């Protein structure tokens, strides 16, 4: 580990706005009256439903099973009765098949007794199976099933476990609070992952705007493992997988390849803490920490929220929105999605709920591209967003593909800096979709 830069080239510096919640202790939110659990909460195939309307479920019961390898089961996050299995607003803006559960009002919410496997006695395959069975996915936003990342093909040796504590999205503090409040749990999760992957080295990357998290992690470093904490420059998107790998290992993930092709597995701090919890309590992933924040919210907080809790309940618990609240975003403001429907549930990949006011919502008026080149200086994967934008408007998707559109990770840096306010990343998302459609046709 030498001559590593502490950051990547390009990127942007949005105000991090974390002061609202970075020092706020994580609290548990009471169970809502009703929860909605979409069958599609992870990247990959949606889970297959196991319950019927009217069924009684306990907290932690499996209500949908994994459909194939790149899929995970869904568990009831509260005891109650299945009220409906129907289309329901999904955070991605679509309608998705969802199990709606009426929560039993006076239930103690105690899960069924279960045996907790002793992880040291398990083979890597058994660890993976347990992780999949617990429904664990990446909690950083993309919700990629964790057991898949734990299963690299045998011909790709893994050298590094990179633990992503960068949390570079403005406003969000869930990973920050996890590292400050449960550093031991993070280290326990790292231990399990390192054994399962058979790697010798782990690096926890944390942006320097979280000095307390860095201090807590370093204080509790295990002595028998090669784990280091690497403070990173505060810059967006420092937490993007490819950026983090380049900073820590000095290697660029080749275009179109996965991190494992350069010998690295990246896992978000929150997911690692969840793995630890699975082997501490035996409970599956049924709740997560969510930062509920923003200038348009009365009482910002970091909350442990049962998966499936609806937006309206979370906002109500946080004192409601201010009169000038203008937009509600799931996830961070750079890559998150706007939510128009109050019934939308928090799902496994929801890192935060950010309520923006009119003053913070971006302006609507756009101007012609003035070729300033600011987007080229911002793009962390060195694309030419200016030219791609012109091609996108003309619908020349094949040409965009030749210019490496598929390497775009939709981080939003180009749109953020564009003085003409051209919705570049939105155009790229649509162009990618169009290309996928054409490839399928």
């Amino acid at each position, binding site marked *: 580990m030498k001559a590593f830069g502490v950051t990547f080239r390009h990127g*942007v510096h*949005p105000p991090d706005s974390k002061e609202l919640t970075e020092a706020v202790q994580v609290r548990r939110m009471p169970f809502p009256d009703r929860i909605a659990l979409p069958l599609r909460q992870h990247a990959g195939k949606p889970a297959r439903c196991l319950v019927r309307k009217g069924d009684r479920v306990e907290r932690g019961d499996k209500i949908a099973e994994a459909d194939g390898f790149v899929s995970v089961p869904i568990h009831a996050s509260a005891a109650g009765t299945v009220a409906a299995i129907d289309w329901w607003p999904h955070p991605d803006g679509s309608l998705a098949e969802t199990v709606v559960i009426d929560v039993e009002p006076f239930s103690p919410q105690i899960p069924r007794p279960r045996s907790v496997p002793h992880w040291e006695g398990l083979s890597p395959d058994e660890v993976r199976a347990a992780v999949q069975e617990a429904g664990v996915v990446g909690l950083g936003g993309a919700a990629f099933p964790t057991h898949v990342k734990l299963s690299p093909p045998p011909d*790709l*040796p893994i*050298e590094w476990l990179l633990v992503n504590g960068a949390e570079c999205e403005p406003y969000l503090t869930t990973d920050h609070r996890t590292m400050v409040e449960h550093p031991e749990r993070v280290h326990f999760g790292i231990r399990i992952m390192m054994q399962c992957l058979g790697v010798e080295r782990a690096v926890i990357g944390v942006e320097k705007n979280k000095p307390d998290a860095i201090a807590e992690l370093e204080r509790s470093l295990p002595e028998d493992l090669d784990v280091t904490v690497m403070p990173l420059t505060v810059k967006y998107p420092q937490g993007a997988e*490819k950026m983090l790998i380049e900073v820590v290992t000095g290697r*660029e*993930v*080749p*275009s179109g*390849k996965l991190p494992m*092709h350069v*010998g690295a597995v990246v896992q978000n701090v929150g997911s690692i803490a969840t793995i630890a919890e699975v082997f501490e309590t035996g409970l599956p992933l049924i709740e997560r920490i969510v930062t509920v924040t923003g200038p348009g919210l009365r009482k910002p907080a970091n909350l442990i929220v049962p998966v499936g809790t609806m937006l309206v309940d979370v906002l109500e618990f946080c004192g409601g929105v201010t009169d000038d*609240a*203008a*937009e*509600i*975003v799931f996830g961070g*403001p*750079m*890559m*998150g999605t*706007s*939510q*128009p429907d109050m019934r939308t549930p928090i799902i496994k990949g929801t890192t935060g709920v*950010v309520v*923006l006011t009119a003053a*913070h*919502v*971006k*302006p609507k008026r756009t*101007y*012609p*591209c*003035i*070729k300033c*080149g*600011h987007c*080229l200086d911002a*793009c*962390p*994967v*060195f*694309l*030419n967003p*200016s*030219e791609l934008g012109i091609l996108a408007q003309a619908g020349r998707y094949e040409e965009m593909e030749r210019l*490496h559109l598929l*390497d775009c990770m*939709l981080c939003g840096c180009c*749109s*953020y*800096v*564009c*003085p*003409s*306010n051209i*919705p570049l*990343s*939105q155009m790229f998302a649509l162009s990618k979709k169009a290309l996928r459609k054409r490839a399928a046709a």
Partner: protein
Amino acid sequence: MDVHRFELTASPHIKGPDSTPRIMWSVVATLVPVVGAAIYWFGPSAALVITTATVGCVVTERLFGPGGTLRDGSAAITGVLLGLTLPPGIPLWMAFVGGFIAIGLGKLVFGGLGQNVFNPALLGRALLQAAFPDDMTTWPAAVEHWWQLRGDNFALPLTSADPTVALTGATPLGQMKFEQIPTEAVDLFMGATSGSTGETAAVVILAGGIYLAVKKYLNWRIPISILLTVAVLSQVAHFVDPDRYPGALFMLFSGGLMLGAWYMATDMVTSPTTNHGCWIFGAGIGAMAVLIRLWGGLPEGVMYSILFMNALVPFINRATQPRVFGTGEEVVAS
């Protein structure tokens, strides 16, 4: 609960502080001191010429533009810049025509803001130079009183300036080229010389340009590479023949080089989008300006070098595309 309407927009949901009008108006704001210096040295003539050129641009944009585009400030920049490149004694109607050409032929025929190939102000000036070569090269001499006009500004439209009204002098570059008379560096730096309204006070242009570079409203690589190339090439020539060729200092601070390097070449629309491209673009302008000044038939060549390099921008862009992350060099897992 009241009905609360929420926005539904695509990510990112926050936006950086820069906007196109803000960039444009910042450029206009930094040009105010340059205009001030022009008025200081050339009196009411400078004010009249710059105002007329700006009015010409703005009126053209308003009449023939797509509508609502005056607020973005780009027409105003073109007008002020054009005015700053004109001789103070030029008839005002020519300045107005220059503004019309700059916006009409320089920008709107290409499709408006962001689409033009050539710097509109310089295109306007180039056409004026071709149409009215005498009036465009009549430089004022020193006058007795500050409020005196520096030429026949009020010549009737479609008529040339009355040559008896103009007090003609010579620019430092002209003096150097045709008579081998050098000018004091201090005079060049402060602007106490003859020339176009805005090209004389190098110090004011430099201050505005540096401010814009710090704000990233212009790419600093362009002026730096232009100035470096000019300095190096002219110094080499100066060593070869010190009597014929002036030194780097003279070349840097005379004529339109400062205004061209900081305000014309850096026009975002007509300069390369890549940083490597900006270096090439600037070096090309610098080299060409030196060539024209030292060996060409004209005393000044900044305008033509910028226009020429403008035409090459698409090629420069294509040749300097950034290497996409994870491509090119093979990365092998060890």
